[in-house]
């Protein structure tokens, strides 16, 4: 066999051992070298159908194993996981689709909404924000800690002077994990209260003024495999001609969704979404009821399909709750504790001894 072809087969062998079997990479390289030598000494012609067939089968098995079977091993065994809603209520996640929403998923699939909408939220990077809180007693030490931190990490070398007392204030934004823990250590040693917030940066995510200015508010975190546990199948989509729908149940109400389905241009003038009038039937002009939608001069009522589809869309809240692999940054609670007054400051000395016991 030619040197070149046997090299390729050696490469194949080391790829198989690295990607498929998971050998430590130097071991995989050694395997490849041995395979190279072995094939070079073999006299196998490329022209034999038998060789071709064997090679094809081998590559087929490698590709299935490396991509599909390994992923299946990792992801097929996912189960419920406990997470918290915004109010701190624990619940099992993901919530399976029930009743009409399950039928709505079939409607979504049947009408191919995935041709224009994705259901996967992405993010680009993760950064950490550090905030601190100090009382008067520690103020000088904290300011000094801030300038030390800035020096050590090569940041803008301004001093920490001017740090407010008694208020939570940002020390530094958009740090990586290493710098954030340095900041935390310096500040905690100086006696301040420190809060480190995780923030995902990405165009899909919730908008925060300066910190994620181009955020489109499509979700609070990226989508992960756990979110699609009960989807049959997960209709992830591949093109975004319309917005992402992974979290649409949080963004829109039933009425808005009905209106969008009937005539998207009433919701957004430049919408490229075709009208889905076949999901509605004409209603009498004077018919009343919460389901009636007016579109210009016509009156429409949703069909069962429309109701189910909207139920399904309202159940899509997958980028809303934190998971271990995809945490969410928590907004600051409004009633953050003020720093404890130093005991020595109490004017009445007799009470000072007992305070704080």
């Amino acid at each position, binding site marked *: 066999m030619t040197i070149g072809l046997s*090299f390729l087969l050696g*490469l194949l062998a080391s790829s198989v051992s690295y990607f498929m079997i998971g050998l430590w990479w130097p071991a995989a390289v050694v395997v490849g070298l041995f395979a190279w030598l072995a094939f070079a000494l073999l006299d196998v012609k490329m022209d034999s159908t038998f060789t071709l067939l064997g090679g094809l089968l081998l590559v087929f098995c490698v590709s299935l194993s490396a991509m599909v079977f390994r992923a299946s091993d990792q992801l097929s065994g996912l189960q419920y996981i406990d997470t918290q809603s915004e109010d701190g209520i624990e619940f099992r996640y993901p919530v399976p689709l029930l009743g009409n929403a399950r039928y709505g998923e079939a409607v979504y699939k049947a009408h191919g909404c995935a041709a224009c909408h994705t259901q996967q939220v992405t993010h680009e990077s993760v950064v950490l924000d550090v905030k601190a809180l100090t009382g008067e007693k520690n103020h000088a030490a904290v300011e000094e800690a801030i300038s030390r931190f800035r020096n050590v990490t090569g940041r803008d070398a301004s001093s920490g002077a001017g740090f407010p007392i008694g208020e939570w204030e940002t020390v530094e934004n958009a740090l990586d994990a290493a710098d954030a823990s340095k900041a935390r250590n310096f500040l905690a040693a100086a006696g301040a209260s420190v*809060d480190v917030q995780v923030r995902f940066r990405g165009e899909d995510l919730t908008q925060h003024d300066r910190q994620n200015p181009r955020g489109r508010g499509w979700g609070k975190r990226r989508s992960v495999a756990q979110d699609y546990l009960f989807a049959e199948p997960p209709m992830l989509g591949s093109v975004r001609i319309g917005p992402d729908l992974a979290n649409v149940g949080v963004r829109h109400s039933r009425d808005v969704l009905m209106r969008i389905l009937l005539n998207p241009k009433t919701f957004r003038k430049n919408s490229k979404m075709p009208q889905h009038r076949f999901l509605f039937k004409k209603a009498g002009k004077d018919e009343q009821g919460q389901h009636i939608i007016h579109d210009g001069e016509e009156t429409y009522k949703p069909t069962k399909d429309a109701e189910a589809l909207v139920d399904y869309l309202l159940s899509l809240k997958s980028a809303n709750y934190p998971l271990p692999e995809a945490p969410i940054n928590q907004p600051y609670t409004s009633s953050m504790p003020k720093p404890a007054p130093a005991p020595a400051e109490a004017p009445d000395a007799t009470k000072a001894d007992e305070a704080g016991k």
Partner: protein
Amino acid sequence: MAAKKTNEETETANAKMAGPAPWVFVLMVVTFYWAINYLDGHGGGFNAKVYSPHKDAAVVASLKVQKTPEEQAFESGARIYRGICVACHQPNGKGNANAGYPPLVNSEWVLNESPSRAIAIISNGLQGPIEVAGQVYNKVAMPAQGAALSDEDIANVMSYIRRNGDWGDAHSLPLVTLEQVKAVREKIADRSAAWTAEELIQQFPDSQ
């Protein structure tokens, strides 16, 4: 009989069979090295829980919102308050004068230097009239909450009601510690009946 080939024919024959020059294979090896490094940097260690752009599982674990212990105590207390206390004392801490629930906002019982009395009230409940912020409340007794709450829970909810800046500037007292709660509960361990205001003042005089 082997036919003699001219140089041209040899060249053509070689060109026909030509394969990549050796330097291509060297380039492939270099690329393979790059690929391994790329996988190390971006592959998340083939871990099922690591999603791009995180580097590995340790980084993901360190991304949990890292709150200080004080803040965690405060938030835990807030959760307990919302779960148990809001029914009577309301989320805004103002209680309901008509129903007979005293407010916690600016209450001298809450904001007393020593948390002992409030701890006792939570543990065993309160009965009889009590004056809070100049008004007397006597309509209902407060049921005991001590059975459901651990020492840590009581410490946390006490910290919350004493440090909740939303309720006013006076609510900025230090954290209530576990030791304080334990000491108080030990002291009143043999009592099971609800307290009255006078008994509380007797049990925990000022400056204790």
